[in-house]
């Protein structure tokens, strides 16, 4: 067992599960989507991205790409949240919430691809 692989797999799956948790619920209901969850998703996703640095296989490159996509989506979601709450005084209207959650939904998709790739790689190793 390779401890590096354990940590790697752990963070990738954790990024997916947290993301899914945040995404779950009514899309425009602020009560269903807690900001701490978003924070955790962002941090875990960033860690997962860093862990994918420096892998020279084709699979590594695609994994890094999906992770970067997820980061981009989540950071945009966080930015929308910050803008709505602090910059423009709009507050948590259903429209804002819906856009934050749908952005995280995009990240969720990228994370799903990441995990699928991870599973494929594991299956291809056959040991």
């Amino acid at each position, binding site marked *: 067992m390779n401890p590096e692989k354990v940590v790697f797999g752990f963070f990738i799956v954790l990024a997916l599960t947290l993301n899914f948790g945040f995404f779950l619920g009514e899309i425009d209901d602020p009560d269903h989507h807690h900001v*701490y969850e978003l*924070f955790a998703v962002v941090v875990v996703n960033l*860690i997962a991205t*860093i*862990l994918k640095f*420096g*892998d*020279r296989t084709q699979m590594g490159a695609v994994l890094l790409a999906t992770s970067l996509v997820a980061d981009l989506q989540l950071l945009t979601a966080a930015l929308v949240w910050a803008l709505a709450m602090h910059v423009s005084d709009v507050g948590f209207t259903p429209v804002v919430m819906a856009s934050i959650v749908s952005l995280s939904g995009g990240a969720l998709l990228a994370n799903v691809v990441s995990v699928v790739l991870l599973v494929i790689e594991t299956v291809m190793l056959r040991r």
Partner: protein
Amino acid sequence: MENIIFLAFRRMRRPLLTLIVAHAVAVLGLTLIPGQDGDGNRWYMDFFHAFYFVSFMSTTIGFGEIPFEFSDAQRLWVIFSLYMTVVVWFYAIGNLLSLVQDKGFQQAITERRFSQRIKRQREPFYVICGYGETGGGLVRSLTDRHQNVVAIDIDQERIDSLQLENLQEYVPALCADARRPRHLIEAGLKHALCAGVVAITNVNEANLKIAITSKLLHPKIKVICRADSHDIEANMRSFGTDYIIDPYDTFALHLATALQSPGLYVLNEWLTGISHQPLTEPVYPPHKGHWIVCGFGRFGKAIYRRLKDEGIHAVVIEATPSLTGHPEEGCIEGRGTEAETLEQADIRKAVGLVAGTDNDANNLSIIMTAKELSPGLFVVARQNNQDNESIFEAVGADVVMHPSSIIANKIRVLLGTPLLYRFLSLAMYQEDEWACQLVSRITAIVESELPEVWEIELSPQMAKAVVDHLAIGRLVTPADLMKDPRNRARSLPCIPLLLERRKSITTLPGAETPLKVGDKLLYCGRYSARGRMAWTLQNVHALNYVLTGESRPQGLVWRLLKRWAAT
């Protein structure tokens, strides 16, 4: 090279991870700890402000307690996270900066940029391995002819000096070991437009390795090598290296040519020289009497063999015959710098002296001592170092042999005007009379400067007008091409030296030989003639005038008018 970039990324993982974790912990703590707002209400910091605060805290910018003054519980957390994030920040940033400055990483970046630059190369180019004295001279003369060159050298200082040179063309250069195939490939060895590889480092084994790599990876290109020993030379020849240049043998051959036929020697010097330089005087090495050869190294041996072939008796002076070996007749032990050894070699009766040790100071000393003892001596000096040029000029040797410039010159001819190389090889079989005649013809044309030598090919690119003319069955001869397109009664100051048609080669082709498409011609003459000839070759009207003497109307209207006037 790829490895090191991945390695750098991999090494970035730890600093970046610690940075993210430390920041996340600090931000999370700040949002969980309650504080008080301006009115004394219980207040929780939100993520936005927490991230803002941590960002300026960790970078030690510190704008203060924003947006409200902190409670003591918050301050306690800030003390803790302050030390944590600041230390982590410095650790991470320091680590990342040192990674970027890492020598291997930098080298990898340079190599990548270099190979990318070569990939974009759109014109044929030569790869020159070894940018020393020889390489420098060669790069200069090739770029002067607007040929593209790529240089590799193992020494960063020499690459830096290349960037300071004021060259006509941009020369991409890389500091790397050319013995490693990877670097040769980066320099464009496998590039479709790579025309040749020139291996002129000062290490024989390196040249050998470069030659073999080039021949294996890109068999079609020209490979030109410097070899200082016959052993290496034979080795290079065994796998088909195109040209192998031994500076000592080359010079010995020159000297033998000068002994045999001074005319041929002058012809050689003039045609291979750099145009616009003043004409050199012919030299006449004496035959009658014996020669003294000081130094029996690679150079001394080559000269001694040639002199012997010419039937000239030579006495060898060598300081360490046990190391270098000695000729069958034996030799005089000594350096040759003292009068005594020279006297032993019977200097007063000698007619020629070769100062051929590998030490410039010794060579100069030998010449000065010898000239004192016997003023009329014909002196051949070997100059090892370019910097000593002025003193070698001052000592008044009749012929100075400088290995670097001999190699550079020869390669320049090979790459720049391959037909000239063939012409000179053929000229070697001619009588001295023939060469003298040609020399006097050249003198009449060029007056006081060395002639320009150029090749033309009757191809659609280089001679559109002529090719079109030949295609419709008209006759064009070398004499036509030599007419001045401004006044056809005059002829251009140049001489056709060689005509190559498929495999057959004619030296000094007759003025009335009918030309065919695909012919290659070699001309020598004044620089101005070259440009005017290019005019005749490419411009239909210039060619028409040269052939017929009439200038036809060029535009449609004038042509119609003329036809109308004729009827």
